[in-house]
């Protein structure tokens, strides 16, 4: 467990250092995820060992957004009188983007002759 956590934190650290050093438009943890994937592909046995630690962390991913969400409540007044329009723009554009993305994916998969398994 501690060993696994040390590996995960080291990969994040590596990601943070490299994205900053090269000025990449990616968060450090996302690059850390790429490194972790490469590690798992190179060492498949490690995947079985670390699986439960990783899945344990991911099982309650929602919880990790709560502190940032509480921060939003305090800042919502900085939107001032624009809050209604901003909310409308966010809701409509989120719906539009989900619909467009999902059809772009399914229609392309269909053109390629893939089934939805």
């Amino acid at each position, binding site marked *: 467990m501690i060993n696994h*956590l040390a590996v*995960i*934190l080291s990969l*994040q650290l590596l990601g943070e250092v490299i994205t900053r050093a090269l000025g990449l*438009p*990616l*968060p450090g*943890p*996302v690059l850390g*995820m790429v490194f*972790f*994937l490469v*590690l*798992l592909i190179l060492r498949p046995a490690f*995947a079985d060992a670390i*699986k439960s630690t*990783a*899945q344990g*962390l*991911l*099982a309650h*991913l*929602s*919880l*990790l*957004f*709560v*502190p*940032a*969400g*509480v*921060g*939003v*409540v305090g*800042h*919502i007044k*900085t*939107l001032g009188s624009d809050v209604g*329009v*901003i909310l*409308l*723009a*966010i*809701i*409509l*554009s*989120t719906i*539009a*983007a*989900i*619909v*467009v*993305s*999902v059809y*772009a*994916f399914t229609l*392309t*998969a269909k053109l*390629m002759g893939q089934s*939805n398994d």
Partner: protein
Amino acid sequence: MTDFQDIWTYLSSEPLLWLTATLAAYIIGDALFQASGKRAYVNPVLIAVILLAVALTVSGTTYETYFDGAKFVHFMLGPATVCLAVPLYLNLRQVGKSIIPMLVALIVGPITAIGTALGIAYAFGIRGEVLLSLAPKSVTAPVAMGISESIGGSPTLTAVMVILTGITGAIVCTPLLNALKITDYRARGFAVGITSHGIGTARAFQVNETAGTFAGVGMGANALATAILVPLLLTLF
């Protein structure tokens, strides 16, 4: 009464109280979510946020004091993102054969997200810093804040819009995609990940692992796509 004062002085100066409160609020939110039969609109993040916001207001606690405790939870976002590699690895073959559909969605999805948000806000008279802050709202917060700063927006405003977008996506995705009768969980997850980043990904993992895996890939890939597309699309406004 002095006893209570002493206890409160201790609690308000230590991170323990608000760390515990954050977990407790989430447990309540998650219990309500489970009790509802996992309905998307009973969002555990939203419930926990509302409970904590009320608790902070009633007790007169500042966000800084709250975050001193909650930062331990917030910190785990980084390691959890790294861990997205595990479901990705376990579903690698399925992800591999979906590369082309993902690339197509990755171009049109973010263009729709950025274009419609800017278009609607512009039509209602939003200009300047607030408009610019809205552009990267579908991307994970640290990247969105960076994009916002580089184009002349406000990173703080962007962070607020990012969280609102995430919660919106997490709430609307299931009913919306069910209404469209989309049964391909690769597509469902990917669409939610590129639209609503980590909060959408968390929701996708509640539905199933395939959806969660593809949402995680979508979130990571969109960090890159939006960083490239936002400056290009802004030349239109």
